[in-house]
């Protein structure tokens, strides 16, 4: 079964592996990797196991496994905390965010990469500059502006804020730069205007990068809580993360919080399991450039 003799790259080579000492080292390192993978996966698994415990069991019994697997506890917490509502709100927030992330960042990158009007280099420099600027520090004036415009208690600030994401613009621009110019020229000669070129030629050719941006945007919109908290708190539109953040000053029982955590991590985990290959690959491809 062992394919050690097929090893082709890396620091340790095939000829090293013929030595027994190196072989032992390899298996020791393999065990270390297994352990690290275990540490990566164990905490969420534990939280899911614990969510089956009741309050007495959780506070008193020093064991990792629950006594029984009873799903009715989940249903009760789900109903008690009205999680249905938060899921729907999060869904709205995520859906709008993904659309904005693709359309707005895509449009800007399209102009910077393909139309290239006068001054676009300066714009790109400004966009790149905002990657370097500490992001969270502008949260206070942003909050004030949102309130002045009366956008507090709506999803608009969350949707539109992701439409101004320098990282996604860079991702799109780098991808658009690789598209063949001849196709775009041909479309222009055929009488397409800019928006038609964008929607009919460029975007259909850029599905892979759109997938990446969409996945990042889903994760970001689902996990974000600071701006959603400031904008949506006590508005009836709280997302799942805002609800989790509210536990900070509430008196909810530990087991209910744990079940809420489980509710919050299940959608991204499902998404990850479905798209794990694309996600791990895209992060290796795009990460460096960010």
């Amino acid at each position, binding site marked *: 079964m*062992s394919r050690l003799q*097929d090893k*082709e*790259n*890396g*620091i*340790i080579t095939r000829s090293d592996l013929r030595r027994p000492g*190196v072989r032992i080292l390899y298996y020791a*390192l*393999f065990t270390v*990797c297994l352990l*690290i*993978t275990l540490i*990566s*996966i164990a*905490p*969420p698994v*534990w*939280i899911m196991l614990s969510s089956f415990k009741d309050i007495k069991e*959780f506070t*008193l019994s*020093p064991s*990792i496994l629950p006594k029984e697997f009873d799903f009715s506890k989940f249903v009760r917490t789900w109903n008690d905390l009205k999680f249905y509502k938060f899921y729907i709100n999060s869904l709205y927030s995520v859906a709008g965010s993904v659309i904005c992330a693709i359309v*707005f960042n895509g*449009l*800007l990158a*399209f102009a*910077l990469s393909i*139309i290239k009007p*006068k001054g*676009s280099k300066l*714009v790109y420099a*400004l*966009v790149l500059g*905002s990657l*370097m*600027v500490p*992001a969270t*520090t*502008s*949260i*206070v*004036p*942003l909050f*004030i*502006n949102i309130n*002045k415009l009366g956008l507090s208690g709506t999803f608009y600030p969350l949707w*539109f804020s992701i439409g*101004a994401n320098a990282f996604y613009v860079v991702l799109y621009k780098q991808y658009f730069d690789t598209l063949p110019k001849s196709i775009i020229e041909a479309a222009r000669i055929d009488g397409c*205007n*800019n928006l038609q070129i*964008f929607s009919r030629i460029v975007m259909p050719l850029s599905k892979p990068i759109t997938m990446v941006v969409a996945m990042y945007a889903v994760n970001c919109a689902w*996990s974000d809580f*600071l701006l959603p908290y400031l904008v949506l708190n006590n508005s009836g539109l709280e997302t799942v993360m805002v609800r989790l953040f509210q536990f*900070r000053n509430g008196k909810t029982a530990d087991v209910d*919080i744990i079940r809420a*955590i489980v509710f919050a*991590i299940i959608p*991204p985990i499902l998404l990850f399991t479905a798209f794990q290959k694309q996600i791990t690959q895209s992060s290796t491809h795009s990460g*460096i450039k960010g």
Partner: protein
Amino acid sequence: MLDRMLEVNKKRITKYKMSENLKHNMGGWLVMAPTLLLFAFFVWEPLLESVRLSFYSAKGMKLIEFVGFKNYIDVFRHPDFLPAVRNTFSYTIWSLVIGFLVPIVLAILINEMVHAKSLFRVGIYFPNVVPGLATVLMWGFIFKPGKTGVLNIILGQFGIEPMVWLSNPKLTIPLIVLTMTWKAAGATALIYLAALQGINPELYEAAIIDGAGIWDRIRHVTIPNLRNLARTLLILQVIAVFQILYEPLVMTNGGPNNASISIMQLVFKYAFEKFDYPKAAAVSVIISIFLISLTAVYNKFNKELDI
């Protein structure tokens, strides 16, 4: 006659070209306009507004009058300021001690594996999909003091007495950094992994011919090839950790006794607990100035190294 006709024609062509150019530029800016508006509203304007706000006194969200550096002086004098600065540096240093090398080592290890490589890759990336807020809440439960905390249960198997973990002021910051590392290390490791796969195998062959052992190969081939990437990720990590907010906010709320309060948490407290926006802006400006000068120094240093 012919000459003049050509002349007129040329002029017409230039004129046509100019209007075409204008149309082209206008069209481009029209496409950019909506997104630029968003960038202005969400990124650029708040940054400048932050500076202006920090020099004013305000009642709620309404600016009253210019007060010079008063907000800054008040912020400096606040008893929480010094602990916050000290802790933020402490977070940064601990995150470099714990968090900087872990992804590099992980990437090198996984790159060497022949078996189960993709399992490891997916496994170490997995924590990154768990939302940050859920992560810190979850680790808060793992670090629960008393006999029923998970970590204490596990240590109990080895006969170690239960500990208080986060409530121990000496352990708070390292434990919070550990939590952050758990979440972020795998994703960073994948970036290093990509760089490792880009190393030309001939370099290793050449090293082997020169008689280099495994350790020598790591030192003279692997590490020099990762150096540039590591430098970039280092500065990005410092910038990110310096703005640490929700981890201490949720896990310890800055406690015990200010042992884990961070500068960004001061911003949060000023703005959203005391509703003193100008002072919050003043703290933000201090953070920005520090980070921007750090980046500038780093860039200069980096250029010198590259030559």
